[in-house]
């Protein structure tokens, strides 16, 4: 299926997720209509990405978002490992 990539977003990675992917940030171009889950799938297809869970915690605009939320061009997501502060 030919997709026109119309949805540029950026994904920040933290802690163990940044470690296993070897980077702290990834720029993605996703098809129109893509959701948070699609962004996660794209990240998991990168080298080391299978070490991430299929449904990690994801934040957008400093708040957690659910997998089925549609993305907008320019969105900044953050993939959050299980938290261990305190």
């Amino acid at each position, binding site marked *: 299926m030919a997709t026109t990539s119309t949805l540029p977003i950026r994904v920040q990675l*933290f*802690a163990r997720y940044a470690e*296993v992917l070897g980077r702290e940030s990834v720029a993605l171009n996703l098809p129109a209509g893509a959701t948070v889950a699609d962004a996660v799938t794209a990240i998991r297809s990168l080298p080391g990405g299978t070490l991430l869970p299929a449904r990690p915690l994801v934040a957008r605009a*400093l708040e957690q978002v659910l997998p089925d939320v549609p993305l907008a061009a320019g969105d900044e997501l953050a993939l959050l*490992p299980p*938290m*261990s*502060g*305190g």
Partner: protein
Amino acid sequence: MGYLSAEPLVPEALVREVERPEYGAVSTFLGVVRDHHAGRRVTGLEYQAYGPMAEAECHRIVAEAERRWPCRVALRHRVGALAIGEAAVVIAVGSGHRAEAFEACRYVIEELKQRVPIWKRESYADGTEAWVDPTAPGGTVPTAREAPR
């Protein structure tokens, strides 16, 4: 802003932030770096945070507690490298009465552990290190250095 600190925490300062003449009770909680975890001897650790979101989430938790109980909350979490015995988190809650102070203080630490994007990497006496992960079997996951792909 200001819930995260790269400098050593000062519990007395947080107590002063929540004192008021009409308050009769202050409950505080200190989370301190322990020398062991899951049977391994810890020699040091590092906290990493998603700073802007951690600040926002701390702010939301404090606001929730102050809305739910008649109280005033101060909260600070350390980031960076910490030694054994250093305070990782300090919470101080001032209130008119002790029940509210205790309950609000407990609420803040429980919510913080669930919701604030901060991650702890421990170093052990045997030279290994791991990320603390409450969802993992054994409570930790080896760092990339320990489990190379």
